[in-house]
């Protein structure tokens, strides 16, 4: 199809033709076109079907407010539904399809819904389909969802990437129309850091769409000159294709910059960038949005906003029709007729609803004063209109205007409430604006180019003075104000048929009246019940008419009726942009242990623990499953020696003259008298008396301690210690710094641990039990001079040490330990074997310190000092936490050794029913013990310590499991601790 509706002039680049397709039909446009302007240039009027009734719809606007022309762009994984054709920039190779129809766009099978319209009024889904109840979920809802709606997702992973970023400025200018450009020019010359952002791909706003004259030249030329000057200034960042979609606290704005949406391929670069802009001041220059007038059958393709018609004619050099009629309630509508005439387009009539107005001389145009349109005709495109007096006028494009609404959206994002301005019959910004924000130009209710320029320049100078920038009033360009008079006229009351208010959601005048009748009288209720103002356009063209009709129903004024609140985002933001880089393996950062490379090379299977990747076990070729590996690691460790990377435990370096006193407040047990060169186990409570974390703390010097925390709580414990240091005991000389990542730490456990370590530690350290006993620690060197720390602590219950070297030596250290251990058959072990051995030994871990248990429950009552204050002391003494039948940590084994145990199961006293009332406690950790040859468990049961030897039922109703178990000591392995002290 040739560009049948293209005329000369405009801001398109005819040297760059662009081929695209719509519903498979090849078409051509030019660089500078939007998809909408290119479709119109090709005479394509029907572009989609409406949401509910599947009515034929065309292009209605020329901007982000578009309710109708939602299309699908691209194909395959890159397919994007619900894109407004009016803001989609044309590119060569663009593939677009219409949406929301079954069969072809021209013969949509679902348009039968239009015939059922009498049954589909406001809130129909709340009234119909109610019976039978079960049908809603299974039949009605899927049916409605299939019939109503918009485009389709590809259901494939988005092939594009997205990025985020941070920008800082003194002054953010939102919108680059006449107001924004004047504000940018004025502020840029003062030296302030300025960001000028506009959602369009060309700066200028309405200056590009109107036939204004500024300083004697076309307003679009003037805009281009201003942009050219701004481009040369290093303190100005010009951001086209950038929507400021949200105003947040303290001058923070959300912005979406479309980087490659106008290109055929993103070429590996981010498609869009979600910016967080920090501004000291901002100026909203978002302009205004035109609103239509409602009348019968006002939704046919070819009926569009008058300002949009001017945009297409003046900017895109496209005529939306060959015989255009204008319908207006204001002077601004007149300019549509004069602009069309200037471009040589036939104007059939100018119909003004007002009596007694005098439009300028429009040669050859019939002017109908006090005229009303009662109906329209044309199945897939407008063919004629019918006036009040019954006269039919044949026309293929109707330009409608009901006045202009300032685009106040961003002023509402921090509870600002727009106020009604009777002069311009529209809401203007009001109430509390977002911090640092001011509003200028049409967005502030100033209509008229000369007034916009003058008032914006004044406001900008005030802002710059407020920011202490020197600025002088710029020489303002010469232009004039257009005629702006408007009358309150929202819909043609004489209309007998459906008159559409919200085109996107198929809400009619009647729907609003019905909602009111049914009691939905507040604007917010009206919105939810009738769906007025919902979905992608958020009622940008429909809200005010909706309010006005609601006001009519209740015989109130519009300001009395109020307006709904606008929330971010101003226009839709793709989920992909909000996710940014956080996808797939980049969802979160990973932490690797120092011996990661060694573990990878030696068959480790890794498990995520928090952000850490830890070796879970090291499989050998002959092993059939993970249990084989874990059982072997446990057995070989207990038989000789095993090595495990335990770097992930939190390490906190604590120094200061008051460090010991500080620790005394933190732990339940005493630390004041811990000797230098010794390690002590410590238990922390929360202030409410519940156990929080545990670990060992070593005293390396009089004023120097090294605390270890559990892996999971490392960050939280550090935070808590800083809180104690700064807020609770602020006068203590104590200093904290994390050294978790600084030291590679390895547990060396098993009867040959000493023999192995003696091969790597340097003299003079003596590893004998006498000089380096259980719970000793030392700073030393290993392997001929590498600095190290050694702690004689045991989580496995074996003779064990933890040896630490600077992290850079960690991988090498693992290798050395394995080589030195070769003669003892040393084995590396992972987190599973670590877990099995700690259960065998009866040590509490995360499953037991689960935020519900006390020191008493854990059998750690002996670690709770009665002599000193510590966090959690007072409330741990509450009677409720010390009841005689409190749960106690004990061990469990199945009466039948072949029965497996299951963590999370509960305990029931034998002979009692499995009910909540009879619940005695729960199993917290289980493992198969290769050492004992059967499953073992740790768990909490009422008075457990007094019930050793009793048989109880382990029940798990969720899995239908019931196993008889015996209550035993939690210390399955070496209960007297002979080995670890040996």
């Amino acid at each position: 199809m040739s560009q049948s509706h293209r005329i000369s002039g405009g801001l398109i680049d005819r040297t760059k033709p662009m081929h695209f397709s719509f519903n498979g039909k090849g078409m051509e446009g030019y660089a500078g076109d939007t998809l909408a302007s290119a479709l119109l240039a090709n005479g394509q009027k029907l572009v989609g079907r409406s949401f509910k009734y599947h009515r034929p719809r065309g292009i209605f606007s020329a901007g982000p407010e578009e309710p109708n022309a939602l299309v699908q762009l691209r194909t395959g994984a890159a397919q994007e539904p619900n894109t407004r054709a009016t803001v989609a920039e044309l590119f060569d190779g663009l593939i677009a399809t219409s949406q929301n129809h079954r069969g072809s766009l021209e013969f949509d099978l679902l348009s039968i819904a239009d015939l059922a319209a009498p049954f589909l009024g406001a809130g129909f889904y709340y009234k119909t389909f109610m019976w039978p109840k079960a049908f809603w979920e299974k039949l009605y809802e899927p049916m409605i969802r299939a019939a109503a709606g918009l485009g389709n997702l590809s259901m494939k992973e988005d092939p594009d990437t997205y990025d985020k970023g941070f920008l800082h400025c003194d002054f953010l200018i939102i919108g680059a129309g006449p107001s924004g450009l004047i504000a940018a020019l004025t502020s840029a010359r003062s030296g302030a850091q300025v960001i000028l952002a506009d959602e369009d791909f060309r700066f200028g706003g309405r200056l590009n769409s109107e036939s204004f004259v500024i300083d004697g030249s076309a307003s679009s030329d003037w805009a281009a000159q201003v942009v050219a000057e701004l481009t040369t200034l290093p303190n100005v960042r010009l951001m086209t294709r950038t929507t400021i979609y949200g105003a947040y606290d303290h001058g923070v704005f959300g912005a979406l910059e479309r980087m490659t949406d106008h290109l055929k391929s993103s070429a590996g670069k981010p498609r869009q960038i979600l910016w967080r802009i920090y501004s000291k001041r901002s100026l909203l220059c978002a302009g205004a949005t035109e609103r239509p007038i409602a009348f019968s059958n006002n939704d046919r393709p070819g009926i569009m906003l008058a300002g949009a018609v001017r945009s297409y004619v003046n900017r895109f050099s496209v005529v939306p029709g060959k015989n255009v009629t204008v319908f207006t309630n204001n002077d601004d509508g007149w300019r549509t007729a004069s602009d069309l005439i200037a471009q040589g387009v036939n104007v059939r009539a100018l119909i003004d609803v007002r009596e007694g107005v005098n439009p300028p001389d429009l040669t050859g145009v019939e002017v109908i004063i006090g005229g009303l349109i009662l109906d329209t005709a044309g199945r897939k495109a407008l063919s004629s209109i019918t006036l009040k007096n019954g006269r039919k006028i044949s026309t293929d494009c109707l330009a409608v205007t009901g006045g202009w609404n300032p685009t106040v959206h961003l002023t509402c994002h921090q509870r600002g409430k727009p106020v009604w301005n009777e002069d311009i019959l529209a809401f203007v910004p009001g109430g509390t604006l977002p911090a640092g924000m001011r509003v200028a130009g049409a967005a502030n209710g100033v209509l008229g180019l000369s007034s916009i320029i003058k008032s914006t320049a004044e406001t900008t100078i005030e802002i710059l003075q407020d920011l202490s920038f020197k600025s002088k009033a710029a020489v303002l360009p010469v232009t004039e104000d257009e005629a702006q008079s408007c009358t309150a006229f929202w819909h043609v009351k004489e209309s007998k048929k459906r008159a559409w208010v919200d085109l996107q959601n198929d809400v009619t005048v009647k729907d609003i009246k019905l909602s009111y009748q049914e009691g939905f009288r507040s604007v917010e209720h009206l919105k939810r019940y009738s769906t007025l103002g919902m979905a992608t356009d958020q009622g940008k063209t429909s809200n005010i008419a909706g309010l006005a009709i609601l006001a009519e129903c209740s015989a109130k004024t519009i300001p009395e009726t109020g307006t709904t609140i606008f929330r971010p985002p101003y226009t839709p933001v793709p989920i992909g942009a909000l996710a940014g880089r956080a996808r797939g393996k980049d969802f979160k950062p990973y932490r690797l242990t120092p011996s990661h490379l060694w573990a990878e090379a030696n068959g480790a299977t890794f498990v995520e623990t928090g952000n850490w990747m830890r070796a879970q076990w090291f499989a050998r070729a002959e092993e059939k499953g993970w249990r084989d590996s874990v059982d072997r690691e446990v057995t070989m460790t207990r038989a000789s020696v095993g090595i495990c990377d335990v770097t992930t435990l939190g390490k906190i370096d604590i120094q200061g003259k008051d460090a010991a006193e500080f620790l005394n407040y933190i732990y339940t047990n005493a630390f004041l008298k811990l000797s230098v060169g010794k390690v002590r186990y410590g238990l922390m409570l929360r202030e409410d008396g519940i156990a929080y974390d545990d670990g060992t703390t070593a005293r390396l010097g009089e004023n120097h301690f090294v605390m270890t925390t559990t892996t999971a709580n490392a960050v939280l414990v550090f935070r808590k210690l800083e809180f104690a240091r700064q807020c609770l005991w602020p006068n203590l000389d104590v200093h904290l710094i994390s050294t978790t990542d600084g030291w590679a730490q390895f547990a060396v456990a098993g009867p040959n641990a000493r023999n192995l370590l003696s091969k790597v530690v340097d003299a003079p350290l003596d590893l004998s039990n006498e000089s380096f006993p259980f719970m000793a620690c030392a700073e030393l060197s290993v392997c001929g001079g590498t600095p190290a720390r050694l702690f004689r602590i045991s989580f496995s219950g074996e003779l064990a040490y933890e040896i630490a070297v600077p992290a850079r030596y960690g991988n090498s250290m693992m290798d050395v330990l394995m080589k030195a251990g070769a003669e003892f058959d040393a084995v590396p072990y992972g987190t599973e074997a670590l877990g099995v051995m700690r259960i065998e030994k009866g040590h509490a871990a995360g499953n037991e310190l689960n935020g519900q248990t006390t020191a008493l429950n854990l059998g750690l009552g002996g670690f709770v000092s009665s002599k000193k204050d510590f966090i959690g002391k007072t409330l741990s003494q509450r009677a409720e936490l010390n009841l005689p039948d409190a749960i106690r940590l004990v061990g469990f084994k199945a009466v039948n050794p072949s029965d497996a145990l299951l963590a999370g199961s509960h305990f029931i006293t034998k002979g009692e029913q499995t009910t909540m009332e009879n619940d005695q406690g729960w199993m917290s950790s289980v493992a198969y013990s290769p050492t004992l040859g059967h499953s073992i468990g740790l768990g909490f049961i009422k008075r457990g310590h007094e019930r050793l030897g009793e048989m109880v039922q382990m029940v798990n109703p969720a899995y239908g499991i019931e196993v008889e178990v015996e209550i035993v000591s939690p210390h399955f392995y070496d209960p007297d601790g002979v080995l670890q002290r040996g």
Partner: protein
Amino acid sequence: MAKFSLQPTPFLGGFQKDYGTVIIKEITDRAITSLALPLGFEAKAEKAIKTVLKLNLPEVGMSTQSKDGTTALLRLGKDQLFCLKNGENDGYTAHKALADKFGDNIYTTDQSDVWVSLTLSGPDSLRALERVCPIDLHPDRFGVGALARTAMEHLGTIIHRNSVAEYTLMSASSSAGSFLHAIKTSIDNVL
């Protein structure tokens, strides 16, 4: 007994890459020692810093460095500083030497292996940093010597402008790979 010896592994294997307008380089020969000022004895500590390092105590969020560029002092907080010493392959020993000189006047902790350090230089560094760094790095507000501790892609990071054209980024060594990935992605995305 020195039958075995330990070999250091740089956290990023000594990574460096020249992108043309941005250059990233891992620093592998820098000792980092944290210095804590004892409560109530800050003046004494400040004097000790002057004596030992010949450097003045910088303001919080600023740094000072020796004329030869080998030593820098970064004030991270009211009572905490990092002393960076270049050309040191053994961080812990360098820390010990410093600790001995400071004695009781300052609490020291070796931080050399807690951090992975990268330098970022070249004219497009700032453009790349815009994609990860929430701090305002405009040269008027983040001049030479300025530093900030913040988060980049969820990773705690110290950013230090150590010269007109070069930034140092320090982040946890255990997540060095993720950190490098974040920086490389930022560069790839702007070039």
